[in-house]
């Protein structure tokens, strides 16, 4: 009965397929949700890779992002799909997809500047506790913004089945999630691999001191990392809102936890690892819900995390992450 937050672990909204759906359907749903987790996980993993901070506030940033997207829809007046033309719906969704990541990135960078930067040389635990503090503040802001109950997110993308097969439904919503997340991840990969800032990021992650000696501006790299992580959380927030159609101030906690687990599962600090981890978590969670029982899916997810860490102590793809002393 810790009244401080009274997080309800039971009320996490997810869209579940109709009864009698087959394995393929659950797999698809798992992959779709998994790619969402992967987007959030990337924010955790990149920040961890650079400054070894478990950013507990990341999930709550995601929550604020979805509230902002909701607010944008309210401002443009496009809240009910039936009342608005296709053009205005597309415009609104695009507006969300541009503005939300920008604001999330700005907020994340500002948080880093104000709160984490003065602690750069402090012990890890100090920074983690600050991140917990930031998470509390974000959560309270969300509470002020939209209250303590679940809020409906405008259902802007229709549930049109694109395949038309009897056994598998692949709706426009699923396509939207994949159509947004996959290009974003590809763009991120290209950015990290081929641009000079990306190279600087990888260098800083590998060895901050050596990177600085080579003339890399660590502060700039860190700010860029927070910006990218925040922007990815913003994209995920919009897509999540449109897909799940319901948001609340505590959702950052649960989804952040899943994403975080995904990052660890893949090997924290490792970008492809976070994507793989996200997909694994999504698929395992959905299959667990389908075949073991909805209420056991979390147990299965965290159980798998523990089992994998016992046998591969640095995560699935984490072999390259060195122990920093």
């Amino acid at each position, binding site marked *: 009965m*810790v009244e401080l937050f009274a997080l309800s672990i039971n009320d996490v909204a997810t869209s579940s397929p109709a009864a009698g759906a087959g394995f393929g359907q659950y797999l698809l749903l798992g992959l779709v949700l998994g790619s969402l987790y992967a987007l959030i996980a990337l924010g955790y993993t990149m920040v961890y890779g650079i400054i070894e901070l478990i950013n507990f506030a990341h999930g709550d940033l995601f929550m604020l992002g979805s509230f902002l997207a909701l607010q944008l829809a309210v401002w443009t007046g496009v809240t009910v799909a039936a009342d608005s033309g296709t053009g205005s719906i597309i415009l609104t969704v695009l507006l969300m997809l541009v503005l939300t990541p920008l604001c999330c990135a700005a907020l994340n960078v500002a948080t880093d500047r104000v709160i984490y930067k003065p602690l750069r040389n*402090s012990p890890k635990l100090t920074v983690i506790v600050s991140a917990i503090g930031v998470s509390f503040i974000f959560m309270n802001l969300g509470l002020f913004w939209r209250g303590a109950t679940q809020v409906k997110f405008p259902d802007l993308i229709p549930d049109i089945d694109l395949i038309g097969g009897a056994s598998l439904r692949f709706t426009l919503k699923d396509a939207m999630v994949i159509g947004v997340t996959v290009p974003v991840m590809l763009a991120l990969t290209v950015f990290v691999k081929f641009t000079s800032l990306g190279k600087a990021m990888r260098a800083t992650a590998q060895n901050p001191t050596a990177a600085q000696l080579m003339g890399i501006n660590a502060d700039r790299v860190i700010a860029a990392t927070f910006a990218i992580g925040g922007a990815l959380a913003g994209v995920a927030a919009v897509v999540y809102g449109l897909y799940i159609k319901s948001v609340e101030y505590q959702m950052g906690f649960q989804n952040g936890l899943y994403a975080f687990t995904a990052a660890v599962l893949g090997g924290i600090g490792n970008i492809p690892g976070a994507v793989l981890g996200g997909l694994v978590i999504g698929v395992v969670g959905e299959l667990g819900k389908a075949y073991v029982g909805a209420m056991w899916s979390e147990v299965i997810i965290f159980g798998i995390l*523990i089992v994998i860490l016992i046998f591969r102590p640095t995560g699935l793809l984490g072999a390259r992450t060195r122990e920093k002393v």
Partner: protein
Amino acid sequence: MRHARDWVPILFVALFAYPFLPFAESNRGAQFTILFVYAILALALNVVMGYTGLLHLGIAAFFGIGAYTVGILTVPFFPFQQSFLVAAVAAMVISATVGVITTAPILRLRGDYLSLVTLGFGLITLYAIRNLDAITEGTKGLNPIEAGPLPGVSEDADFSAVQVHSNWGTRWYKYPYLYFIILGTLGMVMLFLRNLERSRLGRAWVALREDELAATCMGLNPARLKLAAIALGAGLAGLAGAFYAMALGTTGNPQAYDFTLSMIMVCCVILGGLGNRSGVLLGVFLLMGFDRIATNLLDNYLQEQFDAGARTYYKVSGWKIIIFGSVLILMMRFRPEGLLPETRHQRELHPDAEKKEEPQINAENADQDRKPSLN
């Protein structure tokens, strides 16, 4: 901070005296009882985190295991009907055993990964408690927990003769008798930990925390030491859970044992002073006291004064998490060693402070400051 430990005995005396004061209320007493329970829990976490340096993010799981052990052993629903003493000991033993069994395979994990597994373990325990309806009654919780009396107290002993206030309970497990039992236990835990810190085991833990490699080279067995810390921490957390279930008379909603509680306990320990018993005590009283007692008082006060209405941001409770978060951030920025730091941690966090302060120390205090830092 020089006389930091002097206030603890005074606090204990004051708390022992509280129920006899004319303005004592049984509600307030019951709230204090819960604070003492959380203090035991935070001290348990301090063994793992403060002494041994393992960031454990799942201490609430052991708290829950303790509470549910007491529940299963005492509620009428099950055939056990044990006395509270048996149930509390069982809670400690089972928590410690679970702690050792679940931690042993993951000890080779490094730093953050270990923390994450403890987090995962905490969540699994919570979900398991929630889902195993047949045993734990799911979200309803096991109740009523009315354990058999302590040895030497008869089942229907009537305590009305020693009632000072008319609103005190008359059964042995009601306030204020449980209040004294838990406060007494908290005092004993403090004394026990004080002695433990000075013992071979306590010093070995600190050595391990400071430099695992060096400690290993000196012949310490890190795996064994870490398991001992987990066993003790989990056992104490189980004891706290046992008292929690007793004090509430129910195990309550499983949410009471969730990740949030683990995090708040981490915050209490760090805010108060990692590794320092009295600091941890202060941290719990401040944070949990603010959460459980002060907020409600302020809410009622504001309501009476201004009749502000029910909007979230008109109430202190609506601002609670923001206040909490800001305090954590400001503390980490300006006083990362906590309110009452352990000497060793303070030196670590302010490596140059000692040199600067040296000339300012006047003669009478200089002696005290040069005492060995292991209290």
